[in-house]
């Protein structure tokens, strides 16, 4: 097999076309901005005159650009392997993701009127782009981890002779050994496939980031709503503690929490035991306050929910080789590798105070509403008012912040990997890969750039999604 070029035979006519379209678009976009400053826009007539023409040209050219980019991707899927270059081959590997995305978008747009806030997302362009980016990485992560699709090589396998080789390099003796014929995005400094490591990295993020954010929200809500509702001493103490953690520079905290010495003393295990109990407390109080008047039903519900969650909780914190190793193996549902647990705990720990502050200020405001006073006169308990009257009314800002915070958690995970903390050094997560690639960055930038751009696109997607959700939830 010969070396792949970036665009293959597709590029012969698509590359010049793309260059011309991009140049024209840039010129027109600048022109449009200049015109909008020079020509005073008459009220309500933005579509007429010179500025109107420029605006139309920008829109047409932008459409053309998008169409050309799509042509590369579609061409890659349709044409035989290798003819459409690296871009085409990558596009072909992502075929399951494209299909899944098209199905999700088609279904969601068809039924968007019946889907509540999620459906409204498809009324805003920003929201749709963000959702698309996020789902792209979610599907990639799932397909890589569950079915082994998309990735072309084992992310840990080293093939001699491919160290730091440029994108599109052929793998020696690939057909005989049943290997994929190329390293699509080149090899890294240990001769591993950059492309496969990048797509495997998405699973690491999707595994940890949303779940860690969820736990941070559980902690923040369980402590923040009472702090805002009751105020006084409780609020003072909790706010002081939250500010204490927030005044720590995050990286210092990570260095203090995620070193092998600290792991030896078992502090992360104790923190896990404390932090992971909050979902149990939350759901216990939630159900108890709702069904307090119907003890028979409440007891069954509580026993079921708390029993199941308690079992998961105990298997979560019980790890062989740490301070909590009390559960026999047949009862222990799963074990989390030590490194991931430490990373998880520290990310939750860093995020929880910020969530606490947001929830607290939201509930401070909600506590003054009339329906709260009505519930108080009705004689409802404090927890019922907090969790069943106030919390549902705070859901809009909380959902938006949840999306933003997943992005922030992704950045934090990358930071941990970048400093080589927590996760094992051969782990394919994006931060570790960037860290490994940065040493030779000025000579071989190709191993570090793909994970960097992947992380950027995922966080950008989450930010855009949050923006779209905020816009749509403000409309009503």
């Amino acid at each position: 097999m010969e070396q792949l070029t970036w665009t293959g035979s597709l590029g012969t006519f698509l590359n010049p076309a793309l260059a011309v379209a991009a140049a024209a678009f840039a010129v027109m976009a600048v022109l449009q901005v200049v015109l909008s400053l020079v020509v005073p826009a008459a009220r309500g007539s933005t579509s007429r005159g010179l500025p109107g023409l420029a605006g139309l040209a920008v829109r047409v050219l932008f459409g053309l650009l998008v169409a050309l980019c799509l042509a590369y991707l579609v061409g890659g899927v349709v044409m035989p392997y290798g003819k459409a270059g690296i871009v085409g081959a990558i596009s072909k590997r992502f075929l399951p993701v494209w299909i899944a995305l098209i199905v999700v978008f088609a279904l969601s747009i068809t039924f968007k009127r019946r889907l509540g806030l999620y459906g409204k997302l498809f009324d805003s362009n920003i929201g749709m782009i963000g959702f698309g980016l996020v789902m792209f990485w979610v599907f990639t992560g799932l397909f890589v981890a569950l079915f082994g699709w998309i990735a072309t090589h084992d992310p840990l396998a080293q093939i001699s002779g491919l160290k730091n080789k440029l994108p599109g390099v052929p793998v020696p003796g690939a057909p005989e050994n049943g290997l994929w014929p190329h390293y699509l995005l080149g090899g890294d400094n240990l001769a591993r496939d950059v492309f496969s490591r990048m797509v495997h990295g998405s699973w690491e993020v999707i595994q940890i980031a949303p779940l860690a954010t969820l736990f941070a929200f559980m902690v923040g809500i369980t402590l923040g709503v009472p702090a805002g509702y009751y105020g006084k001493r409780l609020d003072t103490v909790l706010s002081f503690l939250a500010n204490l953690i927030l005044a720590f520079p995050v990286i210092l905290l990570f260095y203090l929490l995620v070193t092998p010495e600290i792991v030896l003393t078992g502090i992360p295990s104790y923190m896990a035991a404390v932090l992971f109990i909050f979902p149990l407390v939350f759901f216990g109080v939630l159900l108890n306050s709702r069904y307090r008047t119907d003890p028979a039903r409440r007891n069954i519900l509580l026993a079921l929910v708390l029993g199941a969650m308690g079992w998961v909780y105990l298997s979560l914190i019980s790890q062989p080789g740490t301070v909590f190793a009390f559960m026999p193996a047949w009862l222990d549902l799963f074990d989390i590798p030590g490194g991931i647990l430490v990373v998880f705990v520290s990310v939750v720990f860093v995020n929880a105070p910020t969530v606490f502050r947001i929830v607290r200020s939201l509930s401070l405001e909600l506590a003054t509403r009339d329906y709260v006073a009505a519930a108080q006169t009705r004689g409802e308990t404090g927890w019922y008012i907090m969790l069943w009257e106030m919390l549902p009314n705070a859901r809009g800002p909380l959902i938006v912040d949840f999306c933003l915070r997943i992005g922030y958690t992704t950045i934090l995970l990358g930071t941990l990997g970048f400093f080589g903390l927590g996760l094992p050094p051969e782990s394919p997560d994006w931060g570790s890969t960037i860290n490994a690639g940065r040493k030779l960055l000025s000579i071989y930038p190709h191993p570090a750039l793909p994970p960097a751009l992947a992380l950027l696109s995922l966080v950008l997607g989450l930010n855009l999604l949050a923006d779209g959700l905020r816009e749509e939830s403000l409309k009503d």
Partner: protein
Amino acid sequence: MLAFLLRRSFTMVLTAICLTFIVFVLTNLAPNLEKVAKSEAGSRITDVEVASWLEKNGYAQPILIRYGEWLGVWPGWTRTDDQGRVTGRCIEQGADPAAAPRRCGVLQGDWGHSTVFKEDVSSIVSTRLWQTAKLMLWVMIVMVPSALLIGVVAGMKEGSRLDRPLSTISILTTATPEYVSGVVFIGIFASSAVGLKWFNGSATSAMDDMTFVNFTLPVMTVALYGMGYIARMTRASMTEVMTAQYIRTARLKGVSFSNIVIRHALRNALIAPFTVIMLQFPWLLNGVVIVESLFNYKGFGWTLVQAAGNNDIELLLGVSVVSVVVVLTTQLISDIGYVFLNPRIRIS
């Protein structure tokens, strides 16, 4: 106002004490101390020898007393060995024990000795902090005006032709952490293989001789991440002000648009970004650590990484104290500034 200041300062001091105590405990855990003993007295010593070394060097006392000694409020330990020689925390090697001060800690200006750099912590911290201050100064010079400009221009006409691209740019920069933008910048501007080779990928030479070539990329990298956030806050604040009643009145009076923006709206719109900029300092500290490691600029953040990575307890403590104090001071300034700038807020 005075009561407010006093209360805030009291909280600040309490926070600082709590934070330094936490750092002290976390850096002085048993495994860390064992590592120190082994690196000072030989890596093959037995557990008994480790214990006796710790005992001899004052590490075996209760943690609260040791924290007090480090802080300088508790008298430093002294110890008389079998030959009658007196050693102690505050007694220099070979110095006269009688002349040594009773207390020596952070409050007395004695920050301890770094095991990595073989130097006094206070001198390391002050030189490194100066390097970082230069970086921060340039970051602020680049970041604050451009962020405010983007925010004000985008926010003065919501949904205008300029608003959309500028808002998109600010979202993009908030989604780009320093280690991503740094890597991308080096790939584009500094890489010797494919890049433009405009700037240096390393800023080591910028420590003594700062030039456009070797200092642009680190400054840009730190500034970019914070810029989007400040710009978005400014935009939100600006759009809110532009819909206010008094702006409408001014327009109806026939005041020109540029006059409204500059004379009437800007002042009120910049109150919120001020607090945001002050609160950005902790995040900048974060970015500084990443950028200094990435560009090999030996400043404060780089020192933090070295201290933490090499188990240099006293240096790490010194670095933590400085960063905690920086964060808390900026919080205090932001609170006070907010009250000064916004006459509607009255502190009871």
